[in-house]
């Protein structure tokens, strides 16, 4: 056997080791961004089109974490609060941004390129994501609420839907169009318990009846006349002219009801406009009319604002790359990319003025201008008649709101189901809200 020449052997090992380490070193020159996002259609599309971004930035790798909304909120909130550093880009809502910006957990977007055209952002959207005048997240898409109604039924009954109806008018129309014998409900509204379910709609009703969640001393106002009038109207409207089982209907159930032609009217998110006018999904696609969300004594706060935005936590190790990605994904160029691949109807709605001046988009989405006017009239920093210490139209941007909102939502869904009186439901809600605020130290 040939003896091994240790000197030559050692040199071979050294060369191999050097070559290997160079390979490994080259691979480590790129940065990896971990992006947490929600499993909506628009977000999944962003993931599909992100190849364009990696083409423009070959040294950045993208790692996607796509989750359902509740799971996403849990994961990103836990990560950012414990400074876990797991994520470089987070998809968050207009609920989280004010809370986290105040805690200084997010990086501000104070260095945007001129090509980003930040002035093109719709004012309420820019307001909703700003804290002390600085943007802490960039909007991916935004929505408000509006009224959908059946033009054919209105015509047949000789009714005319005004552009900005009041809740009394809506009640009148619902009474005339309610026909349970033929499976037609006068109106469909959310009843399912939850801070983002029934309380989103009821929150706007309360605002437009002159009410508010908290006064300037953070005392809950659920025992006020405005709350009683608003909730009483809502419960009676839904009970008299709503579908059976309304107390457990959320957005999805009402969309199914409207699409199968069982609702004469529906007040809900503007994103539904795309679904109810899509002949592939809706049986009544050609008969849908749009109007502003109904109001009570004031139009202030009568339609909500929800924004899905991308933000960069302070704990990230790649702040510049992360912000570059967020800028790309919320830019006009990205919208054009979507239009190229999926047509203009797929463009993420509600964030930029230029989209609503674009003829291609307006012809693809006939409801676009109604959606625009809804978003433009939302005012998250000034949602109510009386002054309030919080921001948010249909929500209150404090950490305690999810629990309080869900608890109140549960009580009100009991009222909608006829299991509790409006007064009892509101009394219990008032006590529960005050208890939560007390435990969180707002009155110390």
């Amino acid at each position: 056997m040939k003896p091994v020449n240790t000197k030559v052997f050692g040199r071979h090992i050294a060369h191999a080791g050097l070559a290997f380490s160079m390979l490994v070193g080259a691979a480590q020159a790129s940065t990896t961004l971990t992006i947490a996002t929600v499993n909506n259609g628009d977000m999944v599309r962003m993931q599909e089109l992100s190849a364009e971004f990696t083409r423009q930035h070959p040294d950045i790798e993208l790692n996607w974490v796509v989750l359902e909304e509740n799971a996403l909120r849990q994961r990103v909130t836990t990560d950012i609060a414990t400074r876990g550093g797991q994520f470089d880009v987070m998809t968050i809502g207009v609920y989280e941004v004010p809370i986290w910006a105040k805690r200084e957990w997010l990086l501000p977007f104070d260095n945007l390129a001129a090509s980003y055209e930040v002035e093109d952002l719709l004012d309420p959207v820019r307001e909703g994501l700003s804290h002390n005048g600085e943007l802490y997240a960039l909007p991916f898409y935004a929505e408000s609420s509006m009224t959908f109604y059946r033009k054919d039924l209105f015509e047949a009954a000789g009714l005319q839907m005004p552009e900005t109806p009041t809740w009394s008018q809506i009640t009148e129309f619902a009474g005339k169009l309610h026909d349970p014998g033929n499976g037609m409900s006068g109106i469909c509204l959310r009843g399912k318990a939850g801070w983002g379910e029934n309380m989103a709609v009821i929150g706007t009703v309360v605002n437009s009846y002159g009410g508010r969640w908290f006064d300037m001393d953070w005392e809950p106002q659920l025992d006020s006349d405005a709350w009683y009038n608003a909730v009483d109207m809502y419960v009676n409207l839904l009970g008299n002219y709503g579908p059976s089982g309304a107390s457990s209907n959320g957005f999805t159930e009402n969309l199914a009801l409207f699409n199968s032609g069982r609702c004469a009217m529906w007040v809900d998110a503007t994103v539904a406009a795309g679904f109810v006018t899509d002949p592939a999904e809706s049986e009544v696609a050609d008969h849908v009319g749009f109007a502003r969300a109904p109001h009570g004594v004031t139009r202030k706060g009568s339609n909500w604002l929800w924004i899905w935005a991308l933000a960069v936590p302070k704990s990230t190790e790649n702040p510049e790359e992360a912000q570059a990605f967020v800028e790309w994904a919320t830019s006009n160029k990205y919208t054009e990319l979507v239009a190229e691949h999926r047509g203009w109807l797929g463009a993420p709605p509600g964030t930029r003025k230029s989209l609503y001046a674009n003829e291609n988009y307006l012809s693809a989405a006939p409801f676009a201008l109604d959606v625009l006017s809804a978003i433009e009239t939302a005012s998250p920093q000034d949602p109510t008649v009386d002054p309030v210490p919080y921001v948010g139209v249909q929500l209150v941007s404090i950490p305690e709101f999810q629990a309080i909102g869900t608890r109140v939502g549960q009580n009100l869904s009991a009222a909608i189901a006829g299991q509790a009186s409006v007064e009892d439901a509101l009394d219990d809600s008032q006590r529960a809200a005050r208890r939560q605020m007390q435990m969180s130290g707002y009155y110390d």
Partner: protein
Amino acid sequence: MDGALESGTGAAPRASWFSQNREKLTGVAAVSPAVLLLFIWMAVPLGMTLYFSFQRYLLLNPDRTGFVGFGNYANFFGDPNFYAALFNTLTLVGSVLAITVIGGILLALLLNQPFWGRNVARILVISPFFVMPAVAALVWKNLLMNPVSGLFAWVAQLFGVQSVDWFGQWPMVSIIIIVSWTWLPFATLILLTSLQSLDEEQKEAAEMDGAGAISYFFFIVLPHLARAITVVVLIETIFLLNVFAEILVTTNGGPGSATTNLTFLVYAEALLQFNVGGASAGGVVAVILANIVAFFLIRMIGRNLD
């Protein structure tokens, strides 16, 4: 030499104890890494939960921290929905246990008889257990129980009867139906296997003695099934105390607090606002409750486990 006592040196008796117990010690030494790992796996999270339950720890409000003694527990017990949640938890567990055990026995008896298509029937009966709880809940809520477009509503309409608003008027009953549907296959499977180990000879002997089908069932079959029933009850209790997905997806705690169980209460009051201290206290209370329930269950039927 070997075994002989040496005066003065303390080493010799110890050495002989070790060698005398060598087998036992080898066994302990072999098992100890696994046992130690399991113990750490259990003790560390439990210990951390106990520790956090005595702290004020709000993830979103890091300024307010500190030891609060039993403050979190007082808040949890003082929640107006606490007793409702406790009652709902026990109702849910008790009802589902009753339905699945009784239904499981009947189904097992049925599936034990020879009939055409028995294998297909067995597979169909077992399948609901593999459907994810959230999916099962959605199917029941939207396809079956929906008072406008559900199957039950359609049947009611055929008979000219008003359809039932399941989740509005009977929320707890609806949840019990969904959970029982999911767990019935599990009980059936275990009881069927136990039934199949029953001797045919005993049946013939009983017939010769003039015993009818009913007496045969109560005096021979049921005692034979006792051990399997115990297993079913104990395992199901562990899981039923934690029912969550079905409630979240259908009623979100129900009209008022009608379908809020302890797990959901911890979620709605503490987890939703990232109150780690409060959630830990709720978790500890749930553990204590589970232990109490287990204690009573074992007293009642545990004698059947040898």
